[in-house]
């Protein structure tokens, strides 16, 4: 079952999605989803750290003893985050100016730690890497979706400033959905984060129930 990659992908993207399945990583989810671009940036940085730290933990899973695994996991996540932070600051400075704010926040995200504990600590290297990567991509898609809803309702735009994050080639993503100054401000204030997340979560559960899937709670795999 560990090398069932189709299931790893499905779990990460939908069935056991970090935000809408396991309801983990709520702090960055609420804080960084004031626009679709911010959600996307935070998600991508998290996905990179999750893939790298899952790989490392799976690699060292024979050496890490049960009693000290949590501090070692935190150490690995924090080291990966610092590594990404320093490297981007030095060699991808333009991107760092946009993403730099988000990167240290990844340490405070409990989703990477949860996946290390539930998956990477028990499974071989390649499936663990895939799990980290697809959990990260699922997290990215969720944050982008919440960000998109909040941005459209709150500011009337979609993917504003995407070219700052992805480069000038992506200017076409920047669209104005509603006329200027018609946004409902609450959507981009903290309560809007809870409202948008809750509504999207209800929507996902509704689709699952319609499709006859049982509602699974947190676990390494969806039930």
């Amino acid at each position, binding site marked *: 079952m560990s090398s069932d990659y189709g299931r790893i992908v499905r779990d990460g993207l939908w069935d056991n999605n970090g935000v809408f399945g396991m309801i983990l990583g709520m702090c960055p989810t609420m804080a*960084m989803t*004031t*626009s679709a671009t*911010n959600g996307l940036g935070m998600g991508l940085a998290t996905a990179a750290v999750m893939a790298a730290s899952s790989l490392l933990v799976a690699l*060292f899973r024979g*050496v*890490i*003893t049960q*009693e*000290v695994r949590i*501090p*070692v996991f935190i*150490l*690995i996540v924090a*080291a990966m985050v*610092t*590594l990404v932070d*320093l*490297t981007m*600051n*030095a*060699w991808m*400075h333009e991107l760092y100016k946009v993403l730099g*704010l988000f990167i240290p926040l990844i340490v405070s995200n409990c989703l990477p730690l949860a996946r290390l504990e539930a998956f990477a600590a028990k499974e071989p290297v390649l499936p663990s890497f895939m799990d980290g990567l697809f959990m990260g991509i699922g997290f990215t898609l969720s944050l982008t979706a919440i960000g998109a809803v909040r*941005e459209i309702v*709150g*500011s009337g735009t979609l993917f504003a*400033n995407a070219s*700052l994050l992805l480069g000038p080639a992506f200017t076409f993503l920047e669209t104005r959905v509603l006329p200027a*100054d018609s946004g409902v*401000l609450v959507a*981009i*204030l903290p309560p809007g984060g809870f409202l948008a997340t809750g509504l999207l979560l209800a929507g996902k559960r509704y689709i699952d129930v319609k499709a006859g899937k049982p509602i699974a709670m947190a676990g390494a795999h969806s039930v």
Partner: protein
Amino acid sequence: MKRPTWIHAVVLGAFCTGFGIILATTNVFTADQIAQRAVEDMQNSLAQVVPAAIHDNSLVKDAITVKNDAGKDITIYRAMKDGKVTGVAYEIDGTGYGGQIRLMLGVDAAGNILGVRATEYHETPGLGDKIDPAKSDWITRFTGLSLGRPPVDKWKVKKDGGDFDQFSGATITPRGVVAAIRAGLEFFAAHKAQFLEVR
């Protein structure tokens, strides 16, 4: 199988040492690059607040330090042309919604604002970050103003009875920025002679 406790200490110690070495190595390799990028950022933010036409020197090279009222050393980057100081730029800070906002303020020899830019801030994305010229032209409206224009008691946001617009949903950020700029201009007025003196 019960393993002795010291095994765990060794494992944890080994991981700490290993990742410590990796991070220290990365730091050694990136430190120069990061410092270089910081200097470039400084030159860029100086170029945004001091027009190239008014100086023929390097602002970073002709910098002096002056103590402010709180006793803190402030670096004054001086723009010079034909041996005369034509303007100065220095960092000021204000308090916003998300903590400290650092700004670079450029002032000409007569005390008029050449330009202001936020260099570091932690304001709410989508609300307070409109102080960034990439997101709104708000900060550019200060250019050309001085301590007498508008009068000192009008250097407040409109909500406080002053002359400056706040943003919808964010009053604390512009209030902090306006107060910081006013304090920056008062600093200039108090130390003008020192700033413009050529040694």
